[in-house]
């Protein structure tokens, strides 16, 4: 029986690829296209050095996009992550530099403020049913005001370069040997957990991945990730801040895919009435994602301030909001709720930062740069959408 099931499974995979269920493959293809073109236009683009920067720059907004993914998954939105990140950076700077509090206390305070803001949003949403668009638009304005007020009479505050925080965001890289250990552990863990899982499934008479499949998968991870690490190590290596981002992606992936809470988030986004009737605490689900999102925005703001070694009045304004939301959407998260993954945030922000970094290297007029950014963004997503569309026309709407 196992073998027929395995054959079924294989057939399923093949069919699902043929049927257009390509997961993240299209975004990756889009990314490869972008990278190739930029590399042809300027060979610095794929240099280790530039990629090291690209990875570091992705982290703060990427973390914010991770929060946005959660909010979008329940079918809501948060327009205020930019303001919250700016406010959080300002609070951090005032507490740490102006008030001389220990940096850890300042960080925790900024994060707590973020969480509180999310909680406030959730209360307004759950009690009054105000659309989250409006709540967070109000938040966008109000917290920008608060940020200006916190920095009033100061303008900008420098964070000391010597502080661990700034060091973390600018200069601390994983020692090469440790990076390779990480890769090995990841591949090993993927194999062992996959193996145990497959065995449990087989014991229960369910179709399961074969040993070869598991080995290939782990081997691919080992070689792929190992290659990336090796290449980045040609320059300064893998930044700890990027490691933090990836770790957060993995944790969120686990929470969304492998816990009851995660299922409740998808359910609320898919059909809130069905979720309610399944006795899911819908309000708690909303509260959790709003709190997560604002807290992540605060973390993003802290890292942005640390990377800049300064907090100022314009931190978090400009395109931070749109970039965070766009990263989530480009990574395949639906604006209508119920569809998306944590990895999407990672891919999406890498697409956005690649476009930005590639264009930076091209030395264009701002007018042209805006136009090209728009065009490239569109192209990257068209690849993805066409694939998705073929899936829909195959009836997997």
């Amino acid at each position, binding site marked *: 029986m196992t073998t027929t099931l395995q054959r079924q499974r294989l057939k399923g995979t093949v069919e699902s690829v043929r049927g257009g269920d390509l997961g993240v493959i299209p975004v990756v293809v889009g990314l490869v296209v972008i990278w190739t073109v930029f590399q042809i236009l300027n060979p*610095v683009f794929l*240099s280790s*050095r*530039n990629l090291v*920067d690209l990875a570091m*720059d992705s982290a*703060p907004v990427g973390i914010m996009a991770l929060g946005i993914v959660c909010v979008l998954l329940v079918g809501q939105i948060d327009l205020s992550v930019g303001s919250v990140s700016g406010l959080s950076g300002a609070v951090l700077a005032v507490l740490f530099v102006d008030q001389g509090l220990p940096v850890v206390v300042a960080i925790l305070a900024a994060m707590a403020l973020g969480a509180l803001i999310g909680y406030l949003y959730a209360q307004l949403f759950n009690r009054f049913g105000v659309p989250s668009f409006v709540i967070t638009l109000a938040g966008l304005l109000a917290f*920008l005001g608060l940020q*200006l007020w916190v920095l009033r009479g100061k*303008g*900008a*505050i*420098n964070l000391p*370069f010597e502080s661990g925080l700034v060091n973390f965001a*600018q200069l601390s890289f994983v020692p090469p040997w440790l990076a390779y250990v990480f890769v090995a552990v990841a591949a090993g863990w993927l194999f062992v957990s996959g193996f145990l899982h497959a065995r449990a499934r087989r014991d229960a008479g369910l179709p399961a991945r074969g040993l070869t499949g598991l080995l290939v998968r782990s081997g691919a991870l080992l070689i792929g990730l190992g290659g990336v690490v090796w290449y980045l190590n040609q320059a300064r290596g893998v930044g700890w801040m990027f490691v933090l981002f990836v770790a957060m992606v993995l944790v969120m992936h686990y929470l969304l895919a492998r816990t009851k809470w995660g299922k409740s988030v998808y359910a609320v986004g898919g059909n809130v009435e069905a979720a309610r009737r399944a006795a899911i605490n819908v309000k708690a689900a909303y509260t959790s994602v709003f709190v997560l999102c604002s807290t992540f925005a605060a973390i993003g703001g802290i890292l*942005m301030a640390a*990377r*800049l*070694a*300064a907090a*100022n*009045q*314009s*931190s978090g*304004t*400009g*395109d931070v909001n749109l970039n965070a939301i766009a990263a989530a959407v480009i990574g395949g998260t639906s604006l209508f709720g119920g569809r998306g993954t944590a990895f999407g945030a990672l891919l999406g922000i890498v697409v956005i930062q690649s476009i*930005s*970094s590639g264009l*930076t*290297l091209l*030395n264009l*007029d*701002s007018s042209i740069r805006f136009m090209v950014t728009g065009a490239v963004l569109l192209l990257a997503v068209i690849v993805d959408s066409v694939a998705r569309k073929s899936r829909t026309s195959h009836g997997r709407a």
Partner: protein
Amino acid sequence: TTTGGTGSTESAKVAFLMPDLASTRYEQADAPLFKAKMKQLCPSCEVIYQNADSDASKQQQQANSAMAQGVKAIVLDPVDSAAAASIVKSAQSQQIAVIAYDRPIPTTPADYYISFDNEKIGSMIGQSLVDHLKKEKAKGGLLQVNGSPTDAAAGLIKKGIHSAIDPSGFKLLAEYDTPDWQPEKAQQWVAGQISQFRDDIAGVVAANDGTAGGSIAAFKAAGVKVPPITGNDAEVAAAQRIIAGDQYNTISKPIKIVAEASAVVAWEFMQGKKPAGKATLYNTPSELFVPTVVTKENIKEVLFDSGLMKAADACKGEYAAGCAELGIK
């Protein structure tokens, strides 16, 4: 000191990093002038021009990217003076010279500083207006239209304006930080103040030409006489309004001079020299230039006779008559 970057001086790279698009000068004046001068000094050198669109993080990325491309010097007009410290640190650790341009970097000394300062600009336009009003024996108070509340440079201009008008004896009726420097916002705010203060408005200190245009439109739309209004940047549109008598002043910054001076300094750094400044400011060898306030009285000489602006651009259509009157050809 010039081991940063690759290749010889002959094909060296230099970065010219500007802060925003809210003011058109960076893209339209500073960058082309700098490039032209650089070309003249070193025909084979490459200028990497970037504009950070008011985003300090973006500016940091642009600087990192320039360093990855092996520039030997960076001319930096910081979006945020505090945040620019990171760029200076990082560049200096790679033996790349940083020339602070337009706005200073007080906390971490750069290798050189070339500017006219924004605070000074604020005080000059304010003072020019106050002097004019006193001469005209004007009655009433002033409105102050500042730049974006999130823009550090706007903060400096605002400070300068206050230094001129606070002791002037004219009452400050109300002041406003214009989000994103948007002329439409300035217009709406001024319109509200017209409803409120009606004939009490003796003049308006607007922090740049865009907000000045918005203020003027507000008076026109209210059907009220336009009082003297300041500006800053010497845009063509502002020159036209000055010619037509709608705007009182603007300020012309010697962009050509600073841009070219910075090119010369950058080239010296690229060759491994260490130019000494004319002065020392913020622990940095510095060179400061003085801008000129432009009014109807001197617009011909300052903007047109000097070649900064072409009569063909400004004296079109309805402005032809005004130009003729002032003898601008």
